[in-house]
Structure formats: structure tokens, C-alpha cells
């Protein structure tokens, strides 16, 4: 059926944002959970191992203290992530792009609202405002965190720490403390910023998980929303515990003490004989830059 009188296109034809409004809104919601939220869970699990790693080592950690076992386990995890995970850079780029997308649209959307908790001090209204405030904080925090510890923007780190995967715990601790031994004033500021940043990020994820269920229409009735709220609160409390454990693990031990543990592990790795060809271990080790160094050391006659 043709319409004989199609109105002439108006000058204000819808732009990219308007045409893809729904898609962008839902992608914004989705990226918060996958990949960002999923990564957050994995990231906090790894980092909190600074405190629970001794038990993660099982029999290997029998002679270790909680501190050295934590550093040991964390070191193994970081080695695995940096040397074993396939196409790590691609995963990272997907994450960075997702975070940038979620941040830019998030700011754009947040600016459409006007907080009114002063008049309507309901808990849900506070959560609404906090979701936006924690979002802004998380943008600054995550950018600083990634730029300093991943992209090597060391001029933003107090002291002269430079993060490396081989000395992951000690260089992280040094970046937080501002020195390899005691806290400097800027180190205290950095550590506090980390505390605020991780707390905001975890809240933002847990609350976002709750609102996403409404956005997508998963939870419809008020009791369903309440039930899902309890689940999200538990997820939030659990992740908050892990986030604070991660930070505590990085702050309670001086970097130089951590470095001793890491050096011991690196030295041990160097003297380890090259594995038999064809075994699973050898294939895994082939991709390890670390062991390339050790292989050269051991089989220097090649």
C-alpha cells in the first residue's frame, strides 16, 4: 500500500543516537555485566588471593606464611594470566572498548537526570543517585588504575614504581605506598583513592545488576524485584569483601618483603630443568616469556 502524501523529511531528521536508541541503551546495560562485570569478578578473585592464596596453594603452601603464601599464589596467577591466556591483548582491548563505551554513554545518560534525594530520601532514590556518583568515580579510578599499572603511565604513580608481571604484588604495593618500604604521603592518598575507587566500582556493579533485571524485564513484580535485590546485595557484599581483601593484601606487606618471595619463585623457575618435549607442561611453558629466559640460562649451549 503506497501513501500518496508522504511528508517531506523534516530538517531535524533523527541522528545516530536517536535511530539506534534502543540498541545503544541495551548495549550499555549489557556491557556493564558482560564483559565488564564478569571481568570484575575474575579480577577481584585473583587479587584477593593475596590474602587467601596460602590455602589456594594446598600442600605447596604448607611451609608458607599467610603473607608469603598469598604473594606466591598471586604470583602464579598473574604469571598464568600474562603468559598462558590466549590472545590476552584482544581480551584486554574488548574490555577497554567496553569500559569506554559504558562510560561515555553512562555519562551521557546520567546527565539527563536531576537527583532529588533531598526531598525524596527514599532508599531506592539514594541508590539511583549513588549509581551515578559511583559511576563517575569508577571512570576516574579505572582509568588511573589501567593507565598506571597496564599502560605504564608511571608519571602518575607516586614514587618510582613500575608494574611488572614478574613482580606483580611488590610493584603494585609500591605503587600504592609510594615507596618500596614505608607509606609516603602521596602513597596514603593513592591508597585511599583505591579504597574509594574499588568500593564505588563494586557498588556500581551490584546495583547495576539489580536495575538491569528491571530494564530487561527479568524481574517484573515488586516481590520479584525485592528477591533479586537480596541476591544482588549478597553479590555486592561478597565482591566488596574480595575488593577490600585485595587492597588489604596489597597494603599490609612492605613491597621489599613481597619482592623477596617473588625473587625466590623466579630463581626457582630459572633452575628448573627444561621440560620433556611433547608434554602438556612443555607446550604450556613454550609460551612463557619468563621461561624463555630460564631456558636460555639452562640450555645456553644451543
Amino acid at each position, binding site marked *: 500500500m503506497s501513501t500518496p502524501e508522504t511528508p517531506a523529511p523534516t530538517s531535524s531528521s533523527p541522528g545516530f*543516537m*536517536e535511530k539506534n*536508541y*534502543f540498541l545503544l*541503551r*541495551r548495549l550499555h546495560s549489557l556491557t556493564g555485566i558482560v564483559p565488564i562485570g564478569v571481568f570484575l569478578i575474575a579480577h577481584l578473585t585473583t587479587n584477593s588471593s593475596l590474602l587467601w592464596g596460602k590455602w589456594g596453594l594446598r600442600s605447596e603452601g604448607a611451609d608458607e606464611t599467610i603473607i608469603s603464601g598469598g604473594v606466591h599464589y598471586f604470583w602464579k596467577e598473574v604469571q598464568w594470566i600474562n603468559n598462558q591466556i590466549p590472545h590476552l591483548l584482544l581480551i584486554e582491548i574488548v574490555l577497554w572498548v567496553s569500559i569506554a563505551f559504558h562510560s561515555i554513554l553512562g555519562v551521557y545518560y546520567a546527565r*539527563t*537526570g*536531576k*537527583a*532529588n534525594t533531598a*526531598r*525524596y*530520601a*527514599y*532508599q*531506592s*532514590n539514594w*541508590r*539511583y*543517585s549513588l*549509581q551515578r556518583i559511583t559511576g563517575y568515580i569508577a571512570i576516574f579510578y579505572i582509568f588511573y588504575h589501567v593507565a598506571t599499572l597496564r599502560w605504564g603511565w608511571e608519571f602518575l604513580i607516586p614514587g618510582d614504581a613500575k608494574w611488572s608481571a614478574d613482580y606483580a604484588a611488590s610493584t603494585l604495593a609500591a605503587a600504592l605506598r609510594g615507596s618500596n618500604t614505608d607509606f609516603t604521603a602521596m602513597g596514603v592518598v593513592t591508597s585511599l583513592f583505591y579504597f574509594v575507587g574499588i568500593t564505588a566500582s563494586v557498588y556500581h556493579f551490584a546495583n547495576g545488576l*539489580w*536495575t538491569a533485571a*528491571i*530494564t*530487561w*524485564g*527479568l*524481574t*517484573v*513484580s*515488586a*516481590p520479584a*524485584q525485592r528477591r533479586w535485590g537480596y541476591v544482588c546485595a549478597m553479590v555486592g557484599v561478597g565482591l566488596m569483601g574480595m575488593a577490600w581483601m585485595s587492597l588489604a593484601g596489597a597494603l599490609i606487606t612492605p613491597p621489599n618483603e613481597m619482592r623477596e618471595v617473588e625473587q625466590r619463585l623466579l630463581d626457582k623457575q630459572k633452575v628448573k630443568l627444561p621440560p620433556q618435549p611433547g608434554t602438556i607442561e612443555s607446550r604450556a611453558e613454550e609460551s612463557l616469556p619468563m621461561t624463555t629466559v630460564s631456558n636460555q640460562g639452562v640450555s645456553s649451549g644451543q
Partner: protein
Amino acid sequence: MISTFTNTDANSPLAAELAQRMANRKMAKEGRTIIFRIKRCDGPGKPSRWEDFKVPVPKNANVISCLQYIAANPVTAQGQQSTPVVWDSGCLEEVCGACTMVINGKVRQSCSCLIDDYAPGEGDVMTLEPMSKFPVIRDLWVDRERVFHNLKRVKAWVPIDGTYYLGGGPKESPQKQETRYKLSECMSCGCCLEACPQFNLEENKNEWDSAFIGAHAISQARLFNEHETGKQLKDDRLDVLMGPGGVNDCGNAQNCVKVCPKHIPLTESIAAIGRAVTVRAFTRFFKD
């Protein structure tokens, strides 16, 4: 699908508010005089100012009866001659929504607002302000046109107009009827919009179609989508609600459901429409 919304959680601020009102009502003094602090404005675009009025409160007085007293005695508490305060009202029994205003900082209907609940003592102050999300016409009277404009955006009606008799409509199940009855109580008063951090004053009418539509229109879209004849326009409604200013603009502050004088489960409607547009999006992408 629908659940009866209750404000009776012992710890909720709403329960605390209600308990405070009940306590005030019991201790209200007879023959007292209270102060009305009213935000006044002489016309669109004119500046606002505050004026105080002393009003003797008879038993069972409400805000409207006090405004009538001020209209008859437009003298401020400082003794200066002023003008009668203008406000809008209709039914005087909380079913038309016309007299909605901001009382002591929160939006509600002034006709059902009893003075005993808010100002039980001699010299107590009550503040009256016009709703802030709509253009002020004068004093407490605002132009709520955008409320109705947004209902038109989602075609909040049942399409039965025609040139011949269409016969009886399809059968409605009692369960759906029960769901829809609650939704149908909406009186388009604007409380949900006034309390919403995502719905803000927009004087430029050209922006209305892309600004947030508000909880009331989303809930009315659900009402008519659930209606056996009304659902003929379901896709039209959902397509609008998927676009700019639609259901995605909701920020889940959930103030709407707390201030709704009819206790309409607005947040459930928002989630139900969220679900419907999710399905609609997949349908549009893979099927249509």
C-alpha cells in the same frame, strides 16, 4: 503478575511518614492558628517569592479550605495586603488530580491533605509550592498539558472508532481485569513525574517527544496493551517506548510508586513494559 503494593514495611520511610501523620492527628489542637508559607508567582516567566499567611484552622480543615480562607482574607502574616492565592482544583475527592501541589516538600493532592496530619500545633508552618516539573501559570496553578501529551504519544486508548457496528468485543479474563483495574485508577495527576529524577521541566514543546515520557504513560501503555481490544495498538505503543524518552530513560529511582496517591504498581508496569520491548526488539530483529 501484579502484586498489591504495600507501604506497610515497618522500616520504610513511607510507614514512618504515615505513623507521624497519625500521631499528629491525635495531638492536633483545636482552635489553633497556623502559618502557610506559599511560593507565589504572578505569571509565566515571572519571578517567584514566598509569602506567609496566618490561617485559623477549624476541625477537619484541609489545604483547600485554608486556601479558600486566604482567598477571602489575602493579608500576609506581616499584615500586608496581598492577592488571593491561585490554585487549580476539580473534584475535591482525590480522583481528578487537578489540585496536585508540593506540600511540605513532597508532592500530593491538596484536597486530601488534612491540616491535622501536618501541622498539629499552634504556629506550625506548612509550605505550599507549585509542582516544579510543569510550567507555572500562576501561584500554585501549573500547566499539566505534557502529562496528556505523553498519553497521546503511547496511544493510551482503545481503538473502536469506525463507521459501522463492530459487534461485541473479545472476552476479558477476570485475572487480567484485576490487573488492569488497579492500573486504570491513574488520574494523570503528575505526582509520579514530580518525584521522578528523570522527568524534568521542559518548556519547549518540540522537545516533549524525545524527553522522558514518565511512569504514568508507561503504565497506561501497559493497561491498554493488556486490554483485548486495546492490544491492537500494542506494537505502536512499544515502538514509541523503545525510542528516545521511552521506558529506557527510567533510572529506577522508584520514587513514582512511593508518591502515587492511588498506589498504582508503576515500577511493575515499567518492568513489564521493559520485558515487552525486549521481546519486541527481538521480534523486530529476527522476524518482522
